């Protein structure tokens, strides 16, 4: 089949004057958006700018209030995802997790299973699933339930499904949030190949590096309005940020480069640690490790996906029970039998998979924020309503959570704002040790800087932090020490001046035999 590339007389997709209001929020206000054949077009904006709403209104998940959409010059108005798919528009929605109970193959082909004699041809489905995934460098057991795989694998399956369906338009709403650098590179390869076949791609992300790596054009939204459309090569990064925020990003926030003073605080080590782990580990999860965390210190965990970072923090928080080793808090031995125990000890944990483990969609923003604090106090001692409102309002201001008011059900907030609320939940407990798994994922540039500043401020107040992040610049910016993991093992510990992106990368890449200074634990 040779792809038919129509004369680009009409743009592939032309959106004109699109509007959508929700109760009390004008999410889209007369937005224009043009997608050409064979281009990758970034759709950018702050959290709550209206990116996801634009996508959902376009594909018929929401009914639009006004505006037109033309596909190759023909007006379309899909009334639902199914109809959009039939128009060859494939979409990965921001919140989609696919279906954990179905097999990988079933997820890929749901609604478009290969048929034979009127029945689903399961054999063909398996074969085609393997073929599709191999295009993404993924060879997994396609008959296994999707829920068994890591978030990253699930995300790749979701992307593969959309790519396989999008003969004309592919829409990706923050598809790379859980992917590591190598997986992102594979994805970009696929996107470039699609682009070569004349397919138009809409790409929503908060990673500006990725925008400049693959996108041809950029459209920026702010508060539901179109700010402008530019060619990527004509828009310097600072101008882009200014377009998104509507103001310059303050100089202080730019300081993402390493600040040596942050790493060099010799007397911290002399103080007794807040928590100390010795030979702490769990079979088939992570090899035994030693780890000290002092008050006021940020310890970063770096490593590739599946290297044992998430497993380490799950052990520290008692979500998985360690089967060997000792843990002490303030020098006293403790047994971390579960999260409740950990919370009682003053630990907090903001998980990676926030959709599944984090927000309670029906509850209000306020209730979500005070949830952990209330749980620690016990449900028999309710926090007075006034106090709840104070706490919620404080964090809504502090983290710039975009919501009309604190009583709105949290599921109506944009993805990035939900994540900020989740972070607020743990900050509200004023934990002594806060564990953050990918704290800035899906959070826009402005808030990103805000959160890093907040982290620094909290540490100055004596809180200890254990942070998992795939963004090495970010880790380097705020960590005093960095533990590097590989193959479920702590292979190196970098401190002070050693904390640089290069050192972390070379530790990850080093041969297993010549591992870092702190030594591998056999």
């Amino acid at each position, binding site marked *: 089949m040779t792809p038919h590339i129509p004369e680009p007389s009409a743009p592939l997709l032309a959106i004109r004057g699109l509007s959508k209001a929700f109760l009390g929020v004008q999410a889209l206000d007369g937005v224009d958006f043009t997608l050409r054949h064979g281009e990758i077009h970034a759709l950018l904006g702050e959290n709550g700018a209206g990116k996801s709403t634009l996508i959902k209104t376009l594909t018929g998940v929401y009914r639009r209030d006004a505006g037109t959409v033309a596909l190759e010059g023909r007006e379309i108005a899909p009334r639902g995802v199914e109809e959009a798919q039939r128009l060859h528009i494939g979409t990965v929605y921001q919140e989609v997790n696919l279906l954990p109970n179905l097999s990988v193959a079933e997820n890929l082909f749901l609604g478009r299973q290969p048929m034979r004699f009127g029945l689903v041809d399961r054999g063909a489905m398996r074969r085609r699933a393997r073929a599709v995934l191999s295009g993404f460098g993924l060879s*997994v057991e396609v008959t296994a339930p999707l829920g068994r795989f890591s978030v990253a694998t699930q995300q790749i399956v979701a992307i593969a499904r959309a790519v396989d369906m999008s003969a004309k338009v592919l829409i990706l709403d923050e598809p790379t949030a859980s992917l590591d650098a190598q997986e992102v590179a594979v994805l970009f390869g696929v996107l470039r190949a699609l682009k070569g076949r004349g397919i138009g791609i809409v790409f929503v992300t908060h990673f500006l590096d990725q925008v400049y790596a693959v996108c041809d054009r950029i459209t920026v939204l702010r508060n539901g309005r179109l700010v402008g459309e530019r060619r990527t090569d004509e828009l310097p990064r600072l101008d882009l940020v200014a377009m998104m925020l509507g103001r310059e990003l303050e100089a202080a926030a730019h300081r993402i480069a390493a600040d040596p003073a942050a790493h060099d605080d010799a007397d911290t080590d002399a103080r007794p640690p807040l928590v100390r782990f010795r030979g702490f580990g769990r079979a088939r999860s992570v090899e035994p490790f030693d780890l000290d965390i002092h008050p006021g210190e940020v310890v970063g965990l770096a490593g590739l996906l599946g290297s044992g970072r998430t497993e380490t923090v799950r052990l520290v928080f008692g979500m998985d029970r360690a089967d060997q080793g000792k843990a002490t808090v303030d020098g006293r031995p403790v047994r971390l039998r579960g999260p409740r125990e950990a919370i009682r000890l003053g630990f907090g944990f903001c998980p990676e998979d926030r959709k599944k483990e984090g927000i309670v969609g029906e509850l209000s923003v306020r209730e979500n924020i005070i949830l952990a604090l209330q749980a620690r106090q016990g449900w028999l001692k309710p926090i007075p309503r006034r106090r709840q409102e104070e706490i919620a309002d404080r964090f809504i201001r502090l983290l710039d959570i975009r919501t009309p008011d604190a009583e709105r059900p949290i599921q109506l907030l944009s993805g990035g704002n939900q994540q900020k609320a989740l972070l607020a939940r743990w900050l509200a407990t004023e934990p002594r040790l806060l564990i953050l798994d990918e704290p800035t994922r899906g959070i826009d540039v402005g808030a990103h800087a805000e959160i890093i500043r907040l982290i620094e401020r909290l540490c100055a107040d004596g809180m200890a932090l254990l942070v998992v992040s795939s963004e090495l610049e970010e880790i380097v910016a705020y960590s005093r020490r960095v533990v590097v993991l590989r193959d479920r093992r702590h292979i190196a510990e970098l401190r002070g001046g050693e904390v640089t992106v290069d050192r972390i990368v070379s530790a990850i890449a080093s041969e297993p035999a010549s591992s870092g200074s702190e030594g591998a634990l056999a």
Partner: protein
Amino acid sequence: MIHRFLPLVVTIAVLVVGFLLCAMQFPNFASLRVVGNLLTDNAFLGITAIGMTFVILSGGIDLSVGAVIGFTTVLLAVLIEQGGWDPPAAFAAALLAAALFGAAMGAIIHVFRMPPFIVTLAGMFVARGMAFVLTTDSLPINHPLYGDLNDVAWRFDGGGKLSLPAMILLSVLALAVVLAHWTRFGANLYALGGNRQSAELMGVPVARTTVAVYTLSGLLAGLAGIVFSLYTGAGYSLAATGVELDTITAVVIGGTQLTGGYGYVLGTFAGVLIQGLIQTYITFDGTLSSWWTKIAIGALLFVFILLQKGLLAAWTGRGGEPAEA
């Protein structure tokens, strides 16, 4: 992939072991006659439970099935005995009525976003009430075709036979397995039960699927009502009271998750037979009160739910990263 089928395997193993135990205790037990009777006696329950399995897989519940069976038997009796209808025409009318009733409940559940529990509970009262409006007495059905249909059977040596209800049950089972695993509708049901929002964003026609699954459950309850009326030869407005709970029990014993998304039709079939087996055991024994059936089933249900919880935790737990090439 042994894990995935484990609940199913356990249920079938319990059935087989139970049968062997009975056979060891009662010499006449292991015969085609007993097996044939087991299928015949539980045919209406099995047919209903298969419909219930689909509803539960999709993340819903249908509490109206027992009342729909009762209503169907009364409708048949009234149409045939008082209206002078031919039984085939009456059967068609009953199936249509039951299916439409299910469709209406499905539509209400979808359009008004009402919990299935409430809607079908109301449906239960409506169907039972309609049966009472038709008649409060037990109406015998004396049409000659009823006798003929009851004689239809595939006979084996030694007195065993596969009766018409048993044949209907086995046919429904075969069709249901195909529907669940070899059609798009089946996949959509599992998808809906897994996560409604994700299913919708993946293009599953939620409205159509929801209406269809309750229609199917209604239709099968109607079919079960026909079988029940053949079996008892009467229409009675209190017939099949509490059958909705027996079917839900069979579904759960069969390994289907009450929250939807996980389970197998075949498991439900085994669940029905396990219940039937306990009943048969008590009949054979002769000294035990029939209430022991309920107690045994209650205990079994409890054990199975615990087992499933454990299995599901082991199954969906972080089973390790996939091999990535």
